C-alpha cells in the first residue's frame, strides 16, 4: 500500500510535511535550480537522486531554510522553514562520513542531544527523554554501543548513531543527506529497517538524498530525479522500466539523463 492510501486508511489528512512549489535559485547569475516542485506527505518515503552538481544540496538547504528561494515557495509543516517553531518535528541526518569528536563523547551522549529541542533546551532531560534515546538506539541496532565513545565506532555505526539522534525526537519528517554512502551491508540493513519502522509505526515522512538506493528500493513510494529541475517524479518501478537500476547508479543515471535530452 502506498503511503497516501495507508494514511487515508488510517483516517488521517495528507497535508504535506514538506512542499516546494515552483522553486528557483541562483548563485549570482548562475541558475542552480529552476521551477522545482517537491512534496512529501506523512508516511511517504521519497528518494531524491541526481548526478553531482544537479542542485541536490542547494535544494536541501532551501527545504531546511538555510537558503531562501529566488522564486517560488517552500513550506515545512505548512510554514516557511525559518518560521517553524517546533523544529524537533524535523529529524535531520547531515552528510558526514565521520564526526571526529575532539573530546570523547559516548553514543548515548550524542543521541540524547536529539531530545533537547523537543524537551526545551533549557530544561533538564527526564526519564522519558532517556527512554526515547534508548529506544532510538535500539531501533538502529546500537543499544550495546551506548556507552562507547563515538570515535571508536566504524563509519557505518557512526552514521547509525546520527540517525538515532534524529529519531530520538520522534520526528514527523526525517531528512537524510547521503546517509549510506559507503557503509557496510549490516548497517544498510539496519538503516532500512529503522526507516520502515519510523514510517509505518510512527507515520513519519522520509526524504532520502542518496546515490545508493538498493537497500531501500523495495520500500520507496517515489523517486525524484533532479538535474537543475525535476526530470522525473514517480514510483521507482517506472524508473526501473526505463532501464535505470536503483543500485549504484553513479554510471547509468548520467547516461539515462543524457538520453532524455
Amino acid at each position: 500500500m502506498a503511503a497516501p492510501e495507508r494514511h487515508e486508511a488510517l483516517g488521517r489528512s495528507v497535508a504535506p510535511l514538506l512542499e516546494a512549489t515552483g522553486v528557483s535559485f541562483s548563485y549570482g547569475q548562475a541558475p542552480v535550480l529552476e521551477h522545482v516542485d517537491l512534496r512529501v506527505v506523512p508516511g511517504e518515503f521519497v528518494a531524491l537522486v541526481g548526478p553531482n552538481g544537479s542542485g541536490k544540496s542547494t535544494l536541501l538547504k532551501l527545504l531546511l531554510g538555510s537558503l531562501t528561494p529566488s522564486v517560488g515557495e517552500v513550506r515545512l509543516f505548512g510554514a516557511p522553514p525559518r518560521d517553524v517553531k517546533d523544529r524537533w518535528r524535523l529529524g535531520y541526518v547531515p552528510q558526514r562520513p565521520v564526526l571526529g569528536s575532539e573530546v570523547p563523547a559516548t553514543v548515548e551522549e550524542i543521541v540524547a542531544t536529539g531530545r533537547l529541542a523537543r524537551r526545551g533546551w533549557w530544561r533538564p532531560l527526564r526519564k522519558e527523554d532517556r527512554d526515547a534515546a534508548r529506544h532510538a538506539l535500539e531501533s538502529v541496532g546500537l543499544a550495546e554501543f551506548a556507552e562507547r565513545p563515538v570515535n571508536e565506532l566504524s563509519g557505518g555505526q557512526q552514521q547509525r548513531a546520527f540517525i538515532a539522534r534524529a529519531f530520538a525526537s520522534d520526528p514527523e519528517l526525517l531528512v537524510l543527506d547521503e546517509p549510506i554512502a559507503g557503509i557496510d551491508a549490516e548497517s544498510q540493513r539496519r538503516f532500512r529497517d529503522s526507516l520502515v519502522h519510523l514510517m509505518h509505526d510512527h507515520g513519519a515522512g522520509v526524504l532520502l538524498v542518496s546515490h545508493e538506493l538498493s537497500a531501500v528500493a523495495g520500500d520507496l513510494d517515489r523517486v525524484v530525479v533532479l538535474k537543475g529541475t525535476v526530470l522525473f517524479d514517480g514510483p521507482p518501478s517506472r524508473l526501473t522500466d526505463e532501464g535505470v537500476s536503483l543500485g549504484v547508479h553513479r554510471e547509468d543515471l548520467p547516461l539515462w539523463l543524457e538520453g532524455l535530452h
Partner: protein
Amino acid sequence: MPWPISALPYPFELGFMQRALVAGIAVGVFAPMIGTFLVQKRMSLIGDGIGHVAFAGVGAGLIAGIWPIWTALAFAVGGALGIEWLRSRRKASGDLALALFFYSGIALGVVLVSLGGGLNASLLTYLFGQPLTVNDSELVVILTLGFVIVLSMLALRRVLFAVVTDEDWSRVSGLPVGFVNNVLAVLTAVAVVAAMRIVGILLIAAMMVLPVASGQILARSFRSTLRWSIAVSVSSVIAGLAASRIWGTAPGGTIVLIAAAVFAVVSVARRSGVSRLPATEEADL
C-alpha cells in the same frame, strides 16, 4: 580565612598562601570546565586571544586609574563577542578571527602601557600571574565570577555540548546556536579575567586546555572528560602552589608546568596500554 583552610599545615599555613589556594582551586575548577567545550569546538586557543585583548584592558585601566579587572573584563567580553561574530559570519576562519584580535589586543596593550609610563610591577602580575599577592577584594571577585561561570555551565551543559559538537545539525534542529555560542564566548572572557591574577594573561589558555588534553586521554565520555580535567587541573594548582612556596619559583608558570607534566605522563602511560582499551580491540570495533 575560615576553618579548615586556616588550619592547613606548611606550605599553606600563612594567610597569603591560603588566599592563593582558594583562588587557585576556583580557577582550577572553572578553567577546564570551559576548556572542554572550547577543545570540542576546535577553538582551543581562544583563551589566548581573549587574554591578549584583556591585556589591552589592563593597560587602559592602569592609565584611567580604574581597577584593571573591570576594564579587562569589558575589553575581554567585547573581544570574545567580536571573535565569535567574525567566526560565525564566516567573515574570517576561526583561527584568522582569533589572530586579528590576538595581535590587535597585544599591540593596543603595548601602546596603552607606553602612554602610561611603561612596564611596572603591577602590570607584570597580570601578565605572568601572582597568586601569592591576591588580596581579599580580588579573591571575592574571582570567587564570584567563578561561581557565575560554574552555574551557567551546569545549566547549559547539554545544549552547549550539542552546539560545539555539531553546529550545523543544531541549527537545523532548532537549537539556539547563536545565543549559545555568544554565551560560551562571554563565559570564556569572564574566565580569562577571573584567572588573570592567578596564572597570568600569557598562561591562561594553558589552564583551559592542558588539563583537558589529559582528561580526554583518561576518559571515555564527555561527562567524565569534564571530571578528569577538573581533577587534573585542581591537583596541578595545589601541587604548583606548594612547589612554588617550597622552591621559590613563579607560581603561575609552576602550575602550568605541572599540568603539562601530567599530560606527558598520562599520554606515555596510554601509549604503553595502561588505560583504555588495548589497540587491537579498538581496531576490531
